[in-house]
Structures are given as structure tokens and as C-alpha cells.
């Protein structure tokens, strides 16, 4: 499968939030305004795109039987993946703080949150389960991140508007967010008919 193919598939057809419910916690908690959602979305794209290739290398070159060590160490996968993600998030945070303080100020609080964002670890685990190769995993990281970004921006925009609607009190806020996400999930399902392989022809 080629790069573009996997990117489209990960971003739209198999959207991490709307098809797999990954990263729901921060998706629901940080989607009250578009501005904050935008910051978190960018940070997720960033971290997914970085951790995915690194985890691919770890999983295929170090932990697998055909790797450098020559022993089957796959039982260490969870611990190593989460350690990579945690340290990458830390690293990204420090780099952004040095390079661009203004970006750091807008992303600042969201970066640590990303360590426990299921979309990141889930992406890495899907990559292993689906036997992607290196370039596939880069595409999947970028596409998955972009899909997550789209989803959180969309729900944040809807939630900003719905504040002026007359929702039953008990359904206000969280309950409505769940139902909206369900509706968006159905809307995204209509993209399932797209065949990325046919687009290039």
C-alpha cells in the first residue's frame, strides 16, 4: 500500500476518534472552544507523527526475533512503547519551549495530557497489529493525527454553537457531546465507500 492511500484511510475512513473511540478523554474534555481544540489537535499530529516511526523501529528492529538482539522480546512492547511516548512528549515539550515560546504558550498545558491520550498508544498498537512497514507507519501517524485534529475541531465548533440551543438541562454538556460524536461517527461512515487505491487512477 502506498503512502497517500494509508494517509487518506487513517484520516477519514478509519478515523481514530469516530471509528475507534481513541483519545476520547481529551477529545471530550478539551473540545469546549475551537481555539484550545486547535492547539491540542496540532500537538497530537506532532506527537503521533514522531512516535510512530520510533515505535516501528523499536518494535521491528529491537523487540522482534529478527532484530539486532535476536531474541523475542515482544512482551516488553507495552512498557517500551509507553516509555517512548512519555519521553517523546517530554522532549517535544522542551524543544518547543526553546524554539518557539509563543507556540509553547498556546500548546503548553496540552502537551503533558498527550502522554495518556489513547490515540497515540493505540496508533502504535494498530501499526504492530497491521504489520505496516516503515513508510506506512509514517503515513499512518500523519493521517491518524490529521483525522484526530479534524474530529476535535469539528466537535468544538458544534459545541460552541450548541451553547445557544435549548437542550434539556440533564443532557447539557457531556450528554450532548456523546450524542453529537455518535452522529459525526455516522456522517464519517459515509466516507467508507471511498477507495483510495482507485483515486490515483
Amino acid at each position, binding site marked *: 500500500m502506498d503512502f497517500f492511500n494509508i494517509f487518506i484511510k487513517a484520516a477519514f475512513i478509519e478515523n481514530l476518534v*469516530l*471509528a*475507534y*473511540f*481513541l*483519545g*476520547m*478523554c481529551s477529545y*471530550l*474534555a478539551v473540545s*469546549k472552544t475551537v481555539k484550545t481544540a486547535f492547539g491540542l489537535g496540532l500537538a497530537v499530529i506532532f506527537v503521533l507523527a514522531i512516535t510512530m516511526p520510533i515505535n516501528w523501529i523499536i518494535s521491528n528492529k529491537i523487540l522482534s526475533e529478527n532484530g539486532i538482539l535476536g531474541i523475542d522480546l515482544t*512482551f516488553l*512492547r*507495552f*512498557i517500551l512503547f*509507553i*516509555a517512548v511516548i*512519555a519521553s517523546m512528549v517530554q522532549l517535544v515539550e522542551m524543544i518547543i519551549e526553546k524554539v518557539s515560546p509563543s507556540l509553547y504558550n498556546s500548546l503548553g498545558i496540552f502537551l*503533558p495530557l498527550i*502522554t*495518556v*491520550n*489513547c*490515540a*497515540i*498508544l*493505540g496508533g502504535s*498498537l*494498530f501499526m504492530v*497489529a497491521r504489520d505496516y512497514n516503515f513508510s506506512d507507519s509514517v503515513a499512518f501517524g500523519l493521517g491518524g493525527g490529521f483525522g484526530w485534529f479534524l474530529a476535535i475541531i469539528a466537535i468544538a465548533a458544534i459545541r460552541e454553537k450548541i451553547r445557544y440551543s435549548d437542550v*434539556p*438541562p*440533564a*443532557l*447539557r*454538556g*457531556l*450528554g*450532548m*457531546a*456523546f*450524542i453529537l*460524536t*455518535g*452522529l459525526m*461517527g*455516522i456522517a464519517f*461512515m459515509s466516507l467508507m465507500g471511498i477507495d483510495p487505491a482507485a483515486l490515483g487512477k
Partner: protein
Amino acid sequence: MAETLEKNVVEPKEPLFGKVEKKLLKDPLNDNNPITVQVLGVCSALAVTSMVYPSFVMAVAVVFVCGFSSLLTSLVRNKIPPQVRMIVQLVIIATLVTIVELTLKRFQYPIYRQLTVYIGLIITNCIVMGRLEAFAMANKPWRSFVDGIGNGLGYGAILLIVAVIREIFGKGSLFAGSPLEMKLIGTTPDYFINTMAEGSWFGWYANNNLMVLPAAAMFIIGVLIWIQRSYNPKLVDIS
């Protein structure tokens, strides 16, 4: 701070399972439910709720991980330097999840295949981490353990409610895949079986495919929150 207080005050002997423990166990089931009130841990498990049996396995796994990670974290809480506490917590959780994964792989392979990445995602299930941060880091081991179990149960309860609704309406069965498997509705009468596909409209109930979609889980949880908040007005969102 809590340490010095504990040393000065001579504590009255507390029963092993007193009022505090009971409250810790009961609160997450309704007033402080991890999914519908704290909004933690929605991530990893909604996709498994299309059938009851996998959700049950998932719930047991989360109760186990949640309880024991709280216990272990609470045991070492005074030795963890605050800067690296996240990493320490994650390592404890990841170890427990690996145990669960290997156990399932050995004894329940079909379920293991079905749950795939969602077992691994218990690591980033915010409810586990959230309880460690909010409770286990500041409380004694036994109470933390009970708190972890309670939150695991509150989470499992929602999971099972959603799964029962989705499986009955979506597949017309209950506990499919487990020894208790039963076919409730959607079955065709005997004299139709040779001619009709099972679950077709000739039976008295046609399977509702919407319920099998991931979106159905969101609707059901949305409605559950609605019901819960109508009965429990203090939970209503003011904003």
C-alpha cells in the same frame, strides 16, 4: 504533611471494611461514575461493547489493573520522586496490563483476538491513571485498593449495560461466545429455518444494524447520562 499527622494522632482501630471503604466502593457506581461523571476511561473500551462477553472480560481486566495498580502505587508512594511519578505509574500499569495480556493469550485466545489492541490500551485508560494521581498517591494501600476496585466496577457496570443493550438489539443474542450463550430474539421459528436466513424479517425481530456500529455506543452512553442526571440533578452541567 499527611505523614506527620498520622504519626502524632493515635488512630482508633478501624474495621477492615468500614464506612469509608463502603463509600469508596459505592460512589463510583453512581455519584462519581468514572465514565458518566468523571469522563475518564471512555477511550479504550467503547469499541468492545458490541457484545457482552468481550466487555465482561474487558471489565474484569480493568478491575484487576485498576485495583492492583492503586495498591502498588500506594505502597511505593512515599519513595517516588515527584518529577518522575508519571513514568513510575505508567510502568506499574504497563506491567500489570502485560500480565493480563499474556494470561488472556494463554487461556482465552478467541477473546484475545477479538479485543486486539484494546487490551493494551488499558494502559492509557485515563481512569487507571486518574485514580492513581487523585487517590492512590495520597492514601494508604488498603483504601487505595478498594478505591481502585470500586472505580473499576463503576466502569465495568456502564460497559456491561451498554453491551447488553447493543447485543440484544444488534445481534439478538446474549453472552455470545461464552458458555452461557443464548439466543433471545431475532430467531426464526423452526419451520422457517430451512428456507430463511436467520435474523431476516421473517423472524419476529430483524437485527438492528445501527446497534452494531460504534456510533450506537455513543448514543447509549449519551442517553444513560441523560437518565442519570435527570434523577440526580446535582450532576447537571451548568455551563
